[in-house]
């Protein structure tokens, strides 16, 4: 018995300083983590499962992530099957009822936004890696994020009613600045001639971003989602780029760059490599990240 007490005493050193019971929230993706952090403020302690360099479809399910989920009071996920390849076993092994799907501490942020690319016919895998619930890459879009920010504010308020007014205030402030920002950026694009608003993407990662900014995607380098490009398809993409005048290729950091760069060189265009998420380790904020995303695309379109 005494040995157990001594052991527990030793463990208490491992607990964070100033043992104010903060709400421990895990977020699957860095951008969701940034939302929780900015809305939650000091009342919340955030842990993020994926790093901003990692492809959110293929996050490495390392067992240390089980520890994070075991100790979390809440879990915020992207949803729309983006995490289906790695999250379910981690949740099951976490031995934590609070973060299981459907529990009060579980928030699927995709339930907060209007979804795009929702299949209208039954999904067939020959179409590639189609997400049956709709396109899951809404975190690049400031308008979707506005809704997510408000939703996270309400979610945290339900879990920690005492902090609800504070979460509400912070969420409103952040959503307000997102709204101003998204209008300003959309206006910058609207000033461009129509033929300058055409882009090519590597993966179908940006329909929400393009809808926000008023851009038109004329082709994707992947012939179908998740299927690597073949020469025939790339030749067609090149022909489309020449015919439509699209000169800007947009992709994420974890996608291969050789094909994009070659295509860009052939049409005298540019490749814009967007960071996959907010880099919290470098102290980046949600708006910093969106500035980089929208600014990168707009800068490339203007030149």
């Amino acid at each position, binding site marked *: 018995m005494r040995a157990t007490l001594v052991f527990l005493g030793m*463990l208490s050193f*491992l607990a964070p300083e100033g043992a104010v*019971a*903060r*709400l*421990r929230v895990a977020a699957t993706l860095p951008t969701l983590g940034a939302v929780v952090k900015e809305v939650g403020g000091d*009342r919340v302690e955030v842990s993020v499962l994926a*790093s901003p*360099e*990692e*492809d959110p479809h*293929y996050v*490495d*399910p*390392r*067992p*240390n992530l*089980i*520890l994070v989920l*075991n100790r979390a*009071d*809440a879990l915020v996920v992207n949803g729309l*099957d983006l995490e*289906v*390849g*790695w*999250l*379910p*076993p981690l949740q*099951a*092994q976490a*031995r*934590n*009822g*609070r973060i*299981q*799907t*459907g*529990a*009060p*501490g579980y928030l699927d942020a995709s339930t907060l936004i209007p979804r795009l690319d929702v299949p209208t016919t039954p999904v067939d*895998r020959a179409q*590639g*890696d189609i997400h049956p619930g709709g396109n899951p890459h809404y975190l690049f879009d400031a308008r979707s994020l506005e809704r997510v920010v408000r939703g996270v504010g309400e979610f945290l308020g339900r*879990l*920690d*009613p*005492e*902090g609800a007014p504070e979460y509400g205030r912070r969420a409103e402030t952040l959503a307000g600045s997102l709204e101003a920002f998204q209008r300003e950026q959309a206006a910058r694009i609207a000033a461009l001639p129509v033929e300058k608003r055409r882009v090519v993407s590597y993966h179908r990662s940006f329909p929400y971003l393009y809808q926000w900014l008023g851009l038109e995607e004329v082709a994707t380098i992947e012939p179908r989602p*998740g*299927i*690597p490009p073949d020469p025939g398809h790339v030749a067609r993409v090149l022909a489309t780029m020449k015919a439509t005048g699209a000169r800007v290729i947009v992709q994420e*950091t*974890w*996608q*291969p*760059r050789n094909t994009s760069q070659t295509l860009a060189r052939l049409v005298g265009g540019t490749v814009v490599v967007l960071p*996959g998420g907010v880099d919290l380790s470098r102290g980046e904020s949600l708006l910093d990240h969106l500035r980089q995303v929208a600014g990168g695309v707009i800068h490339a379109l203007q030149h």
Partner: protein
Amino acid sequence: MRIRTVIGTCVMLCLTGISRGALAQEVPGSPGPEDADRRALEEALGADRAAARPPAAMPPAAMQTASTTVAPTAAGGISLDLSFILDVAGAWYSQDPATIGGHDPNRTGFNFQGLELAIQSNVDPYFRFVGTMVFSQFGVEVEEAYGQTLSLPGGLQVRAGQMLTRFGRINGTHPHQWSFVDQPLVVGKFLGSEGSRGLGAELSWLTPLPWFLEVSASMTDAAGECCARSFLGGRDLGIHGIGDFLYTAAIRQFFPFGRDWSLLWGLSGQWGPNASGHGNRTEIYGTDLYLRYRPAGHPERMALSWTVEGFYRARQVPGTSLRDYGGYAQMVWQITRRWETGVRYEFVSGLPGDPLDPEWTDHRQRAAVQATFYPSHDSRIRLQGNGDWMAWRQKPVLGAILNLELAVGAHGAHTF
């Protein structure tokens, strides 16, 4: 006697855990109800539970209305993760390959390795259901069908049903999770052609240490030719006492070194009766090491992994004790999203007069090399070459295997 007390305590812990789990959902950040309030709430919940018990004779009409109005809406949107995974292979061997794995291509010509149906779903907030059915050309076999608790307190988890035991690294996995087409020899020889599995229950504990350290203990059937061959195997002698079960214990620890390097280390042991005579027992010990380098965000998802497993076995047989050992080491390199290659070396010792493997009188070494092409995330084509040196045969067995694997349905998640 002591074992009985320990098991009794475990069962009691689990039962109290299940009843408490439902109440233990509150969030530490928010102030909990005062003691008096909590008592009042508990009493009210108790009264509600008593009131919810169906009256002895409910009119049949009322029952029908309830089921017809509620059931269809509830069933409409429930998702069940179902997937089928097919493994077929064409093989050539220079002589009889003496394969031992239940899904190994075992003859020259076409081989049906198996069609696996995997089912996973949460049952309710307390249980997850996992089922793996394997269809061979002429029958169906339930490889796994178990429930796993989701919300026991204290980092505890129970699995109950038919399941693969957590002995070592490869034993808990199915063929479509393997890098090579065939099962390591030591797994087939020591644990069984289908690995170590059985009906039973397992308790595991995720310790509150700052690194991942999981302890697990299970109690399963000691019989089964396929799945407990070093124990009772095909001779089911029945249960006459607590010592007639197969006990498995394991410790797994994980150490991340930065974002790119990972190390998983496991220690396992199995204890149980064997069929060689009254009171004779078998013990197997194992250790497994998995080291991986996977640079985060690599555009081609490059990864280099190294796995080693070593087993030691001791069996009491009339008049003596048989001791043998074996293991394998493999290195797998995911070069690009579409290409992977790997090498494996295996060594398993042999004993003259071994009642389980009378032919296997001396040591056996096997080397394999494989190249894999992934057309997409859901299919792969593997070419594997084997060289198998059995010390009791004149010539090595050479083999070439071309395997096709296709997965349809829900995306199976990857485990580490």
